[in-house]
């Protein structure tokens, strides 16, 4: 061809233009420095979803019919543990790949140690297009710490509803502190007092009158915080739209609030499990539960929670299906998990408790690999600390030594150690520096789980030992039956905690 196109040459080239229609979307969206072989990563977290309330753990209620079907193309982990029993602790474990005694993310609403600002999931994938959104303000607080490593951080309020949301949109550059300030100024729910001397009284009344029946949510709109509501559908729609148009490879981290309380599920799921004959015996309250909480109240709340899971399941299915139809999943690793569980036992409803029983600490984990067509079931114990090493391994990146997790089986070329120790910690009332007290700590090794509760004056310290394979609901405390095993596990737990806490003892 000549250097200057003549009419004939131009027409020949123009005839090729329609071929552009058939160019794969994944090629069109490619990050300039990436190849088609670099998989996208999509981490989906549903807040407060307990593994013991999913069919994958033998729960008699089918709370996740869609995910059960999708799991035919996934690796399902049946003994996966969070690092802590509430959002800050669970999320900091997942996002830093370390336990909370290392990253110091064990206090509610706090950030992790500054040393993790460049040591986290987002920082380890600098060559990816990193996108994140969360309904949960506690997660936003953590994410704001990692802002330098996020390419798109969607402000929480842009996908939520409510008067506070309108004001929050105006102040979105300061969302974390505005949200905290709003709660401390107006809400007396947690502590009984607020910064507002007079108006907070009327605010409580106003809130109650506003969130009543709303359209397709007969129990009230799902609620994020004291002044903010949300529709999961809106967040899912945004996620799909964003992932369809964003540059690849992407690392998306999306933390949705259901089934976190209040358990305001969508209309079609109301009373699905009503009078279904489900019954689970409960244990009497320990030092922290309400000994007068009626069993039927616990069962009702449990049912409402299970119905809220149905809503989350349906929306995840919608997300997954739309992404699959768009072709994005052909080159995307999808992680489905939670930050912590929920408890309806021992006089406790929820997760803000010192207790660390299985419903709180066991969370679902499903990994969908591109092109996977057969289900795999993994029964080895795994930890939320394992997510980052696994993703690094799957994308061919080096695994830093500071990570405390391992590559998940079956992706690990090394056979798994069946005697591997998995840990968890609850210490939200402990100081950040100095000895960890009070605390609740667990070590899981094989089928055995040892827990220690210490420093909760005036309650005495006590230990528990369970065979969680044979006794998943932890009714039979074996601490007196197997003192030697308990002693060995206690020693390992204490040594590990002491070692991790050593740098903070004398700060």
């Amino acid at each position, binding site marked *: 061809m000549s250097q200057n196109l003549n009419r004939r040459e131009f027409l020949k080239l123009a005839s090729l233009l329609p071929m552009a229609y058939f160019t794969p979307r994944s090629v069109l969206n490619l990050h300039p420095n990436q190849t088609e072989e670099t998989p996208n990563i999509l981490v989906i977290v549903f807040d407060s979803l307990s593994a013991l309330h999913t069919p994958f753990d033998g729960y008699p209620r089918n709370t996740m019919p869609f995910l059960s079907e999708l799991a035919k193309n996934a690796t399902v982990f049946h003994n996966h543990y969070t690092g802590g029993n509430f959002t800050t602790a669970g999320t900091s474990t997942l996002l830093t790949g370390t336990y909370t005694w290392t990253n110091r993310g064990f*206090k509610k*609403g*706090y*950030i992790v140690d500054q040393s993790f600002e460049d040591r986290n999931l987002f920082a380890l994938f600098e060559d990816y297009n990193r996108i994140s959104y969360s309904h949960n303000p506690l997660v936003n*607080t953590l994410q704001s*710490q990692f802002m330098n490593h996020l390419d798109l951080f969607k402000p929480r309020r842009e996908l939520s509803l409510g008067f506070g949301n309108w004001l929050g949109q*105006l*102040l979105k*550059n*300061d969302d*974390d*502190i*505005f949200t*905290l*300030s*709003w709660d*401390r*100024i107006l809400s*007396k729910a947690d*502590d*009984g*007092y*607020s*910064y*507002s*001397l*007079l*108006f907070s*009284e009327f605010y409580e009344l106003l809130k109650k009158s506003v969130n009543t029946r709303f359209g397709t949510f007969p129990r009230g709109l799902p609620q994020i915080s004291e002044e903010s509501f949300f529709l999961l559908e809106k967040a899912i729609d945004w996620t799909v739209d964003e992932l369809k148009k964003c540059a690849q490879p992407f690392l998306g981290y999306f933390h949705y609030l259901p089934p976190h309380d209040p358990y305001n599920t969508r209309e079609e799921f109301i009373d699905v499990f009503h009078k279904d004959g489900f019954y689970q015996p409960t244990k009497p309250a320990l030092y922290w539960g309400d000994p007068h909480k009626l069993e039927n109240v616990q069962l009702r709340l449990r049912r409402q929670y299970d119905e809220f899971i149905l809503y989350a399941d349906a929306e995840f299915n919608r997300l997954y299906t739309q992404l699959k139809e768009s072709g994005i999943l052909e080159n995307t690793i999808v992680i489905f998990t939670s930050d912590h569980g929920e408890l309806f036992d021992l006089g406790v409803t929820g997760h803000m408790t010192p207790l660390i029983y299985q419903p709180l600490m066991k969370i679902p984990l499903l990994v969908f690999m591109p092109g996977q067509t057969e289900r795999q079931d993994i029964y080895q114990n795994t930890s939320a600390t394992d997510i980052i090493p696994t993703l690094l391994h799957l994308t061919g990146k080096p695994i830093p030594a500071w990570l405390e997790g391992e590559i998940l089986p079956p992706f690990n070329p090394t056979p798994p150690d069946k005697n591997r120790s998995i840990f968890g910690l609850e210490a939200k009332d402990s100081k*950040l520096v100095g000895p960890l007290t009070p605390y609740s700590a667990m070590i899981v090794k094989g089928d055995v789980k040892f827990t220690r509760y210490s420093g909760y004056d005036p309650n005495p310290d006590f230990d528990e030992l369970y065979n969680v394979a044979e006794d998943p609901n932890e009714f039979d405390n074996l601490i007196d039956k197997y003192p030697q095993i308990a002693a060995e596990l206690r020693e390992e737990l204490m040594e590990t905690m002491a070692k991790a806490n050593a740098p903070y003892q004398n700060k």
Partner: protein
Amino acid sequence: MRKLFLICVFPIHIWAILMVILEFQWIGERTNFVDALGVGAYALVFALLESLMLFILALILSLLLPPAWNNDKRLASLTWSILAISFWSAVNQVYFILGAIVPRFYANWMVNSGHPLWILIGTLFPLALASIAGPLFLVLIKEKFTQSTLSFVERLETLSIFYLFLDLLGFLFLVYRNIAF
């Protein structure tokens, strides 16, 4: 009107500032010192709005006072009403801050009566009513009490103006946070 507004400013700001001081340490520990200042700034700006709301309410209340009352009596009576309402709101919240325990004899009386809520209302309501009605009555019959109240109001003015200055600083800090951060 200016003095009435400054009286509204006083208790609301005292409370807000005390709360910020009480929680400053853990908020600073949560993220950092500057963020703790941010929370304080939001608290001050809200305190200003709350003062305005209370001022509007006080103006409406002043319409209920006898037309024959002069401005001094009106201001004195409204001052005591505002302070009384603020006092009982503070008591309601201080209970939770201090983890106050009700005296045993009182708790037993409430429980044994079978109507603890009515006992609570029955004992506290007259006290609250007396704390408002008492000063109003004194303003009505004692000119000296009225003048003492006005003298007290004048002393509070300087403090209230200082709080308004803090509100301005807080507002500017928030503007900076939302533009620069």
